[in-house]
């Protein structure tokens, strides 16, 4: 009898820092086991070898920022049975989406001597703005335990176990003292999706929302509490406008703060 075919895994990169796909190589204890369970068909950061599609599972890192990439993501979707986006760039447009709030021509002129050579879109957008996405894994970078969980879940046709509650819950689980209540430090934890393990508060630092907004994030209420701690609207714009700046709840709140209207 023939052995069952191993599922084919592909890793694709768009505008990004490579950190999320590196998370896979950072699974030092599990990597060889993963490589035994799947055929790594496309993973240029790790291998010269390329196996032809279609692919059972595609992991997509990075955001769409060029006309060419806006086409390429459709090709990736066509050859992928399941497509999972990994990280803040792919799920929210990443730090490079700060251009979305400015004139991109101005940005190009600051960085490049000859801006006319630059081919770029006005906006950095998440993958889901272009193609259907089966699952979005948050984080800047993603948590490698969650990454293994999601790969394993999709290979076994089950739903990934990735909580959607806020970082506050993880703080309680980790036994952290609340930095906002105890030290009066403005923290984004109450509106940020869990997944990191509440690292920042464990290091005496406020959460800066690198996992993006949780479901039904009440940013307006949090902004109110922040203003009572003396945070100025300009600082709030910066806080909501970072690695997940273009995620809808954060975008709306930063724009509300920019208008100075609250909401």
């Amino acid at each position: 009898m023939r052995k069952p075919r191993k599922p084919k895994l592909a890793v694709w990169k768009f505008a990004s820092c490579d950190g999320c796909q590196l998370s896979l190589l950072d699974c030092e204890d599990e990597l060889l086991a993963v490589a035994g369970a799947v055929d790594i068909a496309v993973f240029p950061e790790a291998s010269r070898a390329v196996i032809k599609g279609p692919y059972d599972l595609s992991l997509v890192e990075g955001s769409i920022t060029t006309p060419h990439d806006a086409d390429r993501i459709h090709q990736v979707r066509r050859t992928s049975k399941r497509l999972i986006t990994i990280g803040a760039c792919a799920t929210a447009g990443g730090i490079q989406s700060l251009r979305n709030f400015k004139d991109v021509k101005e940005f190009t002129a600051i960085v490049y001597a000859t801006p006319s050579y630059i081919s770029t879109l006005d906006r950095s957008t998440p993958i889901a703005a272009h193609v259907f996405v089966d699952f979005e894994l948050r984080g800047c970078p993603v948590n490698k335990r969650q990454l293994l969980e999601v790969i394993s879940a999709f290979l076994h046709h089950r739903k990934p176990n990735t909580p959607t509650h806020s970082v506050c819950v993880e703080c309680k689980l980790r036994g952290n003292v609340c930095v906002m209540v105890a030290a009066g430090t403005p923290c984004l934890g109450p509106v940020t999706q869990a997944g990191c393990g509440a690292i920042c508060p464990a290091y005496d630092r406020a959460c800066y929302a690198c996992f993006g907004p949780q479901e039904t994030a009440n940013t307006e209420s949090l902004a109110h509490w922040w203003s009572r701690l003396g945070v100025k609207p300009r600082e709030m714009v910066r806080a909501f406008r970072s690695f997940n700046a273009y995620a809808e709840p954060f975008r709306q709140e930063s724009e509300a703060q920019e208008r100075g209207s609250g909401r």
Partner: protein
Amino acid sequence: MSERTRTIKVDYLARVEGEGALYVRVKGDRVADVKLKIFEPPRFFEALLRGRGFAEAPDITARICGICPVAYQMSAVHALEDALGVRVDGPLRALRRLLYCGEWIESHTLHIYMLHAPDFLGYPDALQMARDHRAAVQRGLQLKKVGNEIVTLLGGREIHPINVRVGGFYRVPTRTELAPLTERLEWARDAALQTVRWVSAFEFPAFESDYEFVALRHADEYPFNEGRLVSNKGLDISARTYDAHFVESHVKHSNALHSSIRDRGAYCVGPLARYALNFDRLSPLAQEAARSAGLGPVCRNPFQSIIVRAIEVLWACDEALRLLATYEPPPRPHVDVTPRPATGYACTEAPRGVLYHRYRIDAEGTIVDAKIVPPTSQNQKMIEDDLARFIPPRLALPQEQLTLQCEQAIRNYDPCISCATHFLTLTVDRT
């Protein structure tokens, strides 16, 4: 009669960080054109830093590169501390060195075992190499893991650590928290020594160049965060005068800004440069390992950079153990900083070489202007120069083998295209 024209093309370079391609055109027996093409999309970091608070710079610039975020954080905090007139000394300084040791171990080991060694042993990747060399690949993964453990303990996580701030850290570890690292590093030091032996037995193409090496040099340490920027051809400057000595020119054919030394041209940063300019600052164990591996105090064969990386991993284990043995927690996790209008400069030694940051801030600490020059942009011209000299004597090789050797010559520099790209001009040509 027209000369025979031959092209060597790699449409998507593998086992490098980021998206690049190679195009070489050979006419007769000479190389008519070498293009290390970059099609990684630009992300405009210098532009998006404008208007942000100075305290945000280490977290934002870390996102330039997932492989060497600590390097970006170190260059950012040192440049900003230069602007703010603050010096971070004692245990905080030692912890920053320890953090950098972790990143060097992690990044170098990734490159040695997973990106570069497969070229020497004839595999498309480390996972297939593991079928025949499982013990070696396991050793590499575990060694890399020790580097990541240091970064995770000090930084909170291995990629984009959260604990670095201008003035020091948010929280510093106790001696008890650091204690488990000692045993791990003692194992890692042995593994690094085995790594030096393993890679020094590889076969290396006979290829040397009279490089201008550029690296930091410190009064008594192998360099991380401080020192003069020196070269073997007379450069000796502080980071504050970097812009007066280095120029970035817009080279249209490669669609990239190339960094060069004013009036002299291409230069080389990274392990070969650091090693050549600081051999006397290596620990006795690392020097001895280098001699046993057959290296003199200067190595001009870029293919042997894999040995030099292994020696730097060994040294980083040694240095981390030294730092751990003498660590006493500081009374406060950071020194206070007060914004003032100023410009600050810093070079630090990223795993791939000199990483320059410059920031101008206003009275409130808002960033008005930022400039970042990553190591890969500095090495890019050198990589093309290497290829132009490497290829002609090897034209008799079959196409597939020559292409592979060209890729290997690029991987000698562990190029990080993601890093380089925020300033590279973009054309997409993926036909």
